[in-house]
């Protein structure tokens, strides 16, 4: 597992951890059933507070990427193809939202976007 934390971004530390573990699970570098370090060990290794790692893990569990077995630990959950696809679609949607708001700021309308998309598909 790899986690690189940055103090320079506006993104909260727990979110950075969440994103990076999620990415590695979706990419398959963290495999189903693989045990994750405990919250306390992860906090120690990253030299951050336990509340932060706890929050990251809770969200990973909530979103179905990680399962927690009481008194044993946290494991990478079974990720099926459908789930992976919805996650990817979600990512694309977020990127599109950014693009749309960027376009709007210079006065682009829906039809302008459609033209753009058609062009991209023709290429």
């Amino acid at each position, binding site marked *: 597992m790899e986690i690189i934390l940055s103090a320079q971004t506006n993104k909260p530390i727990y979110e950075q951890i969440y994103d990076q573990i999620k990415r590695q699970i979706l990419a398959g570098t963290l495999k189903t059933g693989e045990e994750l370090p405990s919250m*306390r060990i992860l906090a*120690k290794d990253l*030299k951050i*507070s*336990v509340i932060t790692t706890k929050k990251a893990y809770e969200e990973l569990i909530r979103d179905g990427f990680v399962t927690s077995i009481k008194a044993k630990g946290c494991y990478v959950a079974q990720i099926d193809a459908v789930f992976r696809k919805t996650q990817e679609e979600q990512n694309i949607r977020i990127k599109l939202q950014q693009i749309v708001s960027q376009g709007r700021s210079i006065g682009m309308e829906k039809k302008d976007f459609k033209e753009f998309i058609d062009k991209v598909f023709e290429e």
Partner: protein
Amino acid sequence: MELAVSVKNLVVEYDQFRLENVNIEVPAGTIVGFVGENGAGKTTTIIAILNLIHYQKGEIKVFGKEMSEGEQEIKKRIGVDLDDSFFYDNFKVKEICQVLRQMFPDWDQNFMDVHLKKAGIDPQKKFKECSMGMKAKLKILTAVAHQPELLILDEPTSGLDPVSRDDILELFLEFVQDEQHTILFSSHITTDIEKIADYIIFIHEGQIELNIEKDQLLDTYGLLKCSKQDAADLADFPYEYHQSIPYAEKFVIKDRQGFQKEFPDLTVERITIDELLLMMSKGERA
């Protein structure tokens, strides 16, 4: 939530100084950082918790009990590092350990040996010959070696270089691997607190200004610097502290994201603990 330490309405008065209705809660299993400028009342609060000074009013409980319910039993479970170590200068490190071993039945010499070696402290060295970093580490190690559940540390990292401070933070994080273990530490090196604390308590002129989960502070609070004209346009947007500085106005905003939405043209940055402390002492409260 189980509390390792609770302080309610504490009032301490001496000649020039007053602690005013201090309330503190330290949840078991967490690291709580205690910050404030020199003379704000950090040490006074800490020694009051340890029942080392007389206080006029208030209720202090450690592990849910007042000191009068069995001070010795309670103190056995606390590891303390105050400014003064009370170690004899001419004692060798080895001899200090021998003395402490007599005092504390649960003394873990193995822990001591491992960590002295790791810290590069020669047990044959006299205390007075140790460097500042070594002394600081030795004080913390002896506080941990008798296997307490709660560490209370006053400025444990002050005067140390970044490498030694990092070693000490590592030791703290190792200590809290046990979920029941709790740390309350004061520091004016706020980057240390920014790294490892779960909660932060700000004290200013004898009063608690803010008691907050660290992540919440770093993720939601913001610092706004803007012109006088912009400041006038902010109208009713709530802020916590305000300070006029040369050529600009500074505000502490509680809801950074909300502010940014309402005023997209102004930039509000994350706030550091240092900046918040400065705003508390040099700015005025909303």
